[in-house]
């Protein structure tokens, strides 16, 4: 579905991605982990061509996207929904208007139909009472849920999540994780999640890829990921108190 072929990207003279290759399959929840500055968000931005690679190619549904014209790019982007790290809601619009924005811009639906669809998504994300509120009146978790409602309003095939649980308390973080899993189960959406949070990655991921200094150091199913012999992966696991003998080993071995 999404394939990176020998992607290299340098920013400010520093190589952020160094000839990386990987593929995300349909229906997967593909999680990208790594330390700050490892190139996770840069990888995500290449998938929707918010950034272009210095070399290599990004392929989505069989077609390269790094050289597309504006109208073709628009078609490719219509397959994606994106939940940004900061939720990226337009501050002068209400929650309802934020979620309705893509429908108003890209469809000829009447206001009644828009209200019905927005209402459905808000209900799915437990936001039914928040429609008239402005983003500034919402908590961080609610803003992320509104961002997610906007990301899925056009029924995309793929949803990208950039640090969906950063800055949230553990309870809200687990709720967001549940929502990501629901997206896959109920709507069949392919998800790509960028996160620091390994507990979250192990809970939701069907595959976990770790980036370190612009290179892929591991790309495996969660049960294999925690057994990785790579010292960077091991140290990353240990930094979040995840051990082979701990609860993850038991839980993942049942899957």
């Amino acid at each position: 579905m999404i394939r990176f072929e020998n992607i290299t990207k340098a920013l400010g003279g520093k190589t952020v991605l160094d000839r990386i290759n990987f593929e995300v399959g349909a229906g997967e929840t593909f999680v990208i982990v790594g330390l700050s500055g490892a190139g996770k968000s840069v990888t995500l931005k290449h998938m929707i061509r918010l950034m272009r690679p210095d070399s290599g190619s990004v392929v989505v549904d069989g077609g390269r996207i790094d050289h597309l014209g504006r109208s073709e790019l628009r078609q490719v982007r219509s397959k994606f929904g994106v939940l940004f790290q900061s939720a990226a809601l337009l501050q002068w619009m209400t929650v309802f208007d934020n979620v309705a924005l893509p429908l108003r811009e890209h469809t000829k639906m009447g206001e009644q139909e828009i209200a019905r669809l927005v209402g459905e998504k808000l209900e799915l994300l437990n936001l039914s009472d928040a429609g008239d509120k402005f983003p500034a009146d919402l908590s961080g978790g609610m803003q992320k849920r509104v961002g997610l409602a906007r990301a899925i309003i056009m029924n995309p095939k793929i949803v990208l999540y950039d640090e969906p649980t950063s800055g949230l308390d553990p309870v809200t973080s687990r709720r967001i994780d549940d929502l990501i899993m629901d997206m896959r189960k109920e709507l069949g959406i392919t998800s790509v999640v960028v996160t620091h949070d390994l507990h979250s990655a192990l809970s939701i991921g069907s595959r976990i890829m770790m980036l370190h200094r612009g290179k892929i150091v591991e790309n495996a199913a969660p049960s294999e990921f925690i057994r990785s012999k790579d010292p960077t992966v091991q140290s990353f696991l240990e930094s979040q108190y995840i051990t082979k003998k701990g609860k993850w080993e038991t839980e993942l071995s049942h899957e």
Partner: protein
Amino acid sequence: MRYPARSARRVGGKVLQVLHNTGHALFMLLEATAFVRFLFTKRSRAETAMQMYVTGIKSLVVISVVALFTGMILALQTGLELRRYGQEVYIGSAVAVSMIREMGPFMTGLIIAASVGSAIAAQLGTMTVSEEIAALEVMSINPNRFLVMPRLVALAVMMPILTVYTNILGILGGAVVGATQLGVSVQSYMDNATKFATNKDLYVGLFKAVVFGIVIATVACHQGFMTTEGAVGVGKATRRAVILSFLIILVLGYMITRLFYI
């Protein structure tokens, strides 16, 4: 690398960056102008009306004060000089011509650049660093249509209207000073004011106002979109937007005057 070569490379890099930024700003302006055809869609109409309100109504108080005192200062300074030759009756024409040709559009441009231009740069800068602009792009909503075009139209339309308002208040301010400080009756002040100011003065002044409006919108939006480095970057973008607008207004003001009067 030797020092001269390093310096030359640094200067060359800066020049290239300025050219790149200018090209980027002009492309943004052209694209936003091309999107004016969408002005009468429901959403664009509402956004443009809001921007016109922000530009026009919200700046009215400060423009009124500045316009009034500009006219009063012009009348007082010119009047005191003319009085030495017993010609103070001509302050009406001096104030009217100065206001209509130069001071009206210039002062309005500076105030709008400082108040509205800075607000636009800060808003779009904040949207850029909080990924709202990226979100629009991902939703295939062109920021030049959604954000730049309404601001461009609002400023291009409101600037000449505000300039006429500035001119009127400036001339009235001059009349008050003439009547109270220089012994020139309002009647003879107005007679003089209308006698020497021509239609050409008015048209050139209004043309300047439209150009200044376009400059302010373009510079402010472009600086907003170029913002990096979070809150600090927003501050820098806002400062750059105001300074650049001031400089371009000054230079273009001179060039337009030269074009039409020499």
